[in-house]
C-alpha cells in the first residue's frame, strides 16, 4: 500500500516560520488543512493539502519506490490577502522543490522531492483567490 504523506507535508509547512507567519491561526495551530471541505470557521489565508493526484511506483534494483503527487493550495481574499497568497505560493514551492530533507515520512526515506507552480487556481468562494503548487515525492521503503 502506498504511503500517505499528507501529515508529513503539513508538519513541514508548520515547521516553516515563513509559512506560519502568513497563514491564519486555527484551533491552537495554523490554518493548514488536510481534510476537505475545510470547516466554515477556518480562517484565511489558509493552506489546503489535497488528496493524492496520483500514486505510482518506479523500479529500483531490487524493490519498488513509491511516487506520490499532491497539490498544496493556498487561498485568501482578493481584497486583503492577494499578495500574501501569491507569496505563500512561492514559499511553498521553495520549501519543497529539490529539498527532500524537509519531508519526514515514517518508514520511508524521501530521496526525491520536486514542486511545480504556483499556478492560479479558483477558490470555492466568490471574492477569494488561490495558488496551487504540485508536489511530487519519491520514496524508498526502509529495509
Amino acid at each position, binding site marked *: 500500500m502506498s504511503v500517505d504523506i499528507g501529515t508529513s507535508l503539513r508538519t513541514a509547512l508548520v515547521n516553516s516560520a515563513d509559512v506560519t507567519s502568513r497563514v491564519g491561526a486555527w484551533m491552537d495551530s495554523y490554518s493548514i488543512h488536510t481534510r*476537505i*471541505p475545510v470547516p466554515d470557521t477556518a480562517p484565511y489565508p489558509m493552506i489546503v493539502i*489535497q*488528496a493524492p*493526484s496520483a500514486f505510482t511506483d518506479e523500479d529500483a534494483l531490487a524493490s519498488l519506490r513509491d511516487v506520490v*503527487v499532491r497539490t498544496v493550495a493556498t*487561498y485568501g481574499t482578493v481584497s486583503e490577502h492577494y499578495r500574501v497568497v501569491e507569496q505563500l505560493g512561492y514559499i511553498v514551492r521553495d520549501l519543497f522543490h529539490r529539498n527532500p530533507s524537509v519531508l519526514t515520512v515514517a518508514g520511508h526515506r524521501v530521496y526525491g522531492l520536486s514542486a511545480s507552480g504556483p499556478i492560479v*487556481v479558483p477558490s*470555492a468562494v466568490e471574492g477569494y483567490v488561490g495558488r496551487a503548487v504540485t508536489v511530487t515525492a519519491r520514496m524508498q521503503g526502509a529495509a
Partner: protein
Amino acid sequence: MTLQWNDEALLLKVERAVNRGIADSLSMVRQESFRLILTTPKSGAERPHRTQRGVTHVASAPGEPFASETGLAVSTARISFSDSLSGRLSFGGAGVGYPLALEVGTEKMEARPYLVPALINKYREVEHLVAVRLREGL
C-alpha cells in the same frame, strides 16, 4: 575523405523531430485523460442524469477522475503550440472554468484529477515516443 558537418541542418532536423514527438505525446496524454474521464468506473453519488431521461448518472468520488455528464468539459480539451519545443494541453476556456477546479480541487471540494494521472500513466510512453520520432527524423 572529407566530412562536412552541417550543424544547422542537423539541429533543424532534431527540432522538427522533437516537435513531432511533443505533438504526438500531448495527443496520447489527451486520449488517456479522455479514457480516465469517460470509461473508468465512478463510485460517487447517483442521481438522475441532467440531460438523458431515465438514465442514472454516477458522479465521481474524491480522488477519481471526474465523471462527464454533458461532455462540455471534455469538449474544451485543446492542444496548442506557442513556441518550438513546447506544447500545452489544456481543458476549459471562455465560460468553462471548472475543469481546473476539478483537477486541483478547492478548499471546499476534493480534487477529481484527470491530467496528472494521465501524464503519470503515459510518462514512459512519452519518453519512448519522443525517442522514436527523433530516430525517425534523423
